[in-house]
């Protein structure tokens, strides 16, 4: 089953690339470097959906102690971290030619970086706890607190950057969404979403197989 998902995901990603480079127009103010957006923005959407899954799965695990919930949370956290990493890296690469600097502590970059570190911590807790069952419980608590923290991070960082402080750099955000740009974003989002689902399904299966092998 997951093989089908992988195939569909590949098609989705390819469709996204076609949209990003073939269909979407050359942006007016930034030029073609803006095309980085078509991987940068969908990646963060996918990552945050994955962290939502971590949140729900963690609650389910603490409530039911079903191993499947733990595997879901673990897989979703890994995949979320990978996609968020892609978002951060592509954001920096996009920023260098457009802002002149790899990094700026603007609201969006900073809050994404904080969320990234929170969920890397989630993965570290699992790795550094000797007893796997205990590690699952600890990770669930970190996952819940971490996910609940995401809106707090976003508000606090946004207020920190915008109140009493004019924005120092023009952000290369999504350009005025013309039809083609919006479509390209959507197609890339669907492609990456399918890819993340495929990764999560595969990781889940591996975690289950690992458990059954050592049972």
């Amino acid at each position, binding site marked *: 089953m997951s093989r089908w998902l992988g195939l569909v995901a590949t098609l989705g990603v390819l469709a996204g690339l076609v949209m990003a480079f073939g269909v979407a127009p*050359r942006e007016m103010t*930034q030029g073609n*470097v803006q095309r980085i957006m078509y991987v940068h923005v969908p990646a963060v959407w996918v990552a945050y959906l994955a962290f939502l899954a971590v949140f729900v799965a963690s609650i389910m695990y603490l409530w039911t102690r079903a191993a499947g919930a733990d595997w879901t949370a673990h897989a979703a956290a890994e995949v979320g971290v990978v996609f968020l990493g892609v978002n951060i*890296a592509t954001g920096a*690469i996009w920023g260098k*030619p457009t802002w002149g600097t790899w990094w700026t502590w603007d609201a969006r970059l900073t809050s994404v970086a904080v969320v990234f570190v929170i969920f890397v911590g989630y993965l570290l807790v699992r790795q550094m706890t000797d007893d796997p069952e205990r590690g699952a419980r600890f990770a669930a608590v970190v996952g819940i607190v971490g996910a609940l923290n995401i809106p707090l991070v976003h508000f606090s960082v946004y207020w920190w950057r915008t109140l009493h402080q004019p924005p120092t750099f023009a952000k290369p955000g999504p350009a005025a969404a013309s039809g083609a740009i919006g479509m390209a974003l959507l197609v890339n989002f669907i492609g990456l979403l399918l890819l993340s689902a495929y990764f999560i399904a595969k990781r889940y299966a591996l975690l289950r197989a*690992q458990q059954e092998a050592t049972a």
Partner: protein
Amino acid sequence: MTSDHWGFVAAAYAVAVLALGGYWRRLVHLERTLKTPTLRAARRRGAAR
């Protein structure tokens, strides 16, 4: 007309491909070690966790 910085575009997409592809390869590698029913694989399984 503003420069297109195609080099940066390529770099960004290359990073994405490397990260996502690298993760996929890790999954494939884990799958392979789990499927091999040897003593060495069993030891490796313990380490991979």
